[in-house]
């Protein structure tokens, strides 16, 4: 019993590393889970209280801390993070619910058939399973406003393409490995396209430029299907 507790305690030790002089990367241990992600959000909240931090960049079960100036004593910050982590609860954020209309298939969702083939399902079944899940915004990153969505039905997960699409439209509804998303900008993209949604994930003129925030919930529904 004691050894089990000890093993659990050890397995909850994060990896904390320097990224240059002015940034520190905190990575939660273990497999991906939304529970760990919610603890990352809690850590982020704790870090927001520090005046020496210029930017906090949450990733998938990790957090990059960018300081205004190179800290004189990075060891002290590492010690602070190490001490803080074990007691951090999951931060329960009530995300907003977005319902996104999708035109499945067609030229903008040209990989739908490949995803179906890979899953051993019909394209219609893929569409049904994509609509059946409620997704959670895990983090925003990579491109302005791009949201990494957690909650994809594992049966329709599909590895990224080895040869990316060169001009994927912004708004393309995509699957990349176990994650889902909507492409935020037009350009090369290695994720698999299954449809198109007419949404602007980022607009610099908007009061809140990024449409989604971490913890927001997303549901997709079919506005049209072209097989």
């Amino acid at each position, binding site marked *: 019993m004691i050894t089990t507790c000890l093993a659990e305690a050890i397995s909850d030790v994060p990896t904390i590393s320097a990224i240059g002089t002015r940034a520190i990367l905190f990575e939660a241990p273990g497999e991906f889970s939304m529970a760990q992600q919610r603890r990352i959000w809690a850590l982020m909240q704790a870090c927001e209280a520090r005046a020496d931090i210029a930017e906090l960049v949450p990733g998938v079960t990790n957090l*990059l801390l960018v300081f205004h100036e190179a800290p004189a004593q990075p060891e002290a910050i590492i010690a602070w993070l190490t001490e803080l982590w074990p007691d951090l609860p999951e931060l329960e954020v009530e995300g907003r619910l977005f319902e996104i209309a999708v035109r499945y298939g067609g030229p903008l969702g040209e990989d739908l058939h490949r995803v179906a083939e890979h899953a051993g399902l019909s394209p219609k079944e893929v569409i049904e399973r994509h609509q059946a899940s409620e997704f959670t915004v895990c983090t925003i*990153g*990579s491109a302005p406003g791009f949201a990494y969505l957690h909650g994809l039905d594992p049966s329709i997960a599909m590895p990224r393409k080895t040869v990316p699409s060169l001009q994927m439209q912004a708004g393309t509804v995509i699957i990349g490995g176990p994650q889902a998303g909507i492409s935020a900008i037009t350009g090369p993209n290695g994720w698999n396209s299954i449809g198109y949604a007419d949404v602007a994930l980022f607009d610099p003129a908007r009061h809140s430029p990024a449409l989604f925030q971490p913890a927001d919930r997303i549901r997709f529904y079919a506005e049209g299907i072209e097989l």
Partner: protein
Amino acid sequence: MITVLETGPLNTVQDLGRFGLRNMGVGSSGMMDMLALQVANILMDNEDGAAGIEIQTYPCVLRFDVDTRFVVTGADVGLSLDGVMVLPWVVAQVQAGQVLRIERPTVSARACLAVAEGINVPVVLGSRATQLRGGFGGLAGRVLQTGDMLPIAPSDGPAGFGAVPPLRVLAAPGETRPKSVTVRAIPATDHDHFTASSREHFWGRPWRITPQADRIGYRLRGEPLRLIEPKELRSYGIVPGIVQVPPAGEPIVQMADANTAGGYPRMACVIEADLWRLAQAPIGTDIYFQLCSHAQGVAADVEMRRYLNTLRSMVGYYRASAARQSGQRKHSA
């Protein structure tokens, strides 16, 4: 206004960058050679955040449509104003209608043109830097094209003085070798997960900048680096300078237009004080990474700030003296 008469394809309006938006997927952008812009803004008596033009493809030919002053810093470019040679790193006066021609540098890569009061494009999300990926900031979120007009202010302050380039003041790390540059870097997250021989390689051997090198990042060529065992990483936040190693084993250094998130193993991160050296390294340059501690990285920052502070106070003295002399001339006239 400045009118663009001729330009290569990749020149943009940049300032010191857009910060605080990485959590929305917006990278910092900004001048690749930040030090060049800082020097230029000190010489022009501009605000630190004033925007300039980053020139990385040549020739670039610009016409000034107002009487003003400018300075070109960064690369060792050839400059001529209506066919008459002018020097980089020196503030020059220009009359409306004069044409500035900026020619390809011989050993470095990126020139920075600053004008009095800066290039006055709109501030978008806190900065005038061009965000090419997002298509905003700078001039309409894109690279400059022939015929573009950029708003600038008239100015008649002092000219004919300049700065000693940082390359001559800040001690270069490592040995001086032809067509090579040494930058200091701090080991990053996955450093110890690479094989001992890969680590030795990384710190000891040259890494050549391939033609796949731009504002986003530089792909480097050399003997592939190997992890002790493969690692699947989850998406994490990145900053310019980080050296990542994709599965093929040849590293990529992320630069000013880097994405905000990455997923490759992290070998090291180039210290901020040496990013301008990388920005000035053209394709084909051999990069040597020199292992550096946090304290050494901070010391390099301090040295850079000292250079800028010295320059700022010297420029202050010169401007004050120039103002007094022009007052005396007016008085005696």
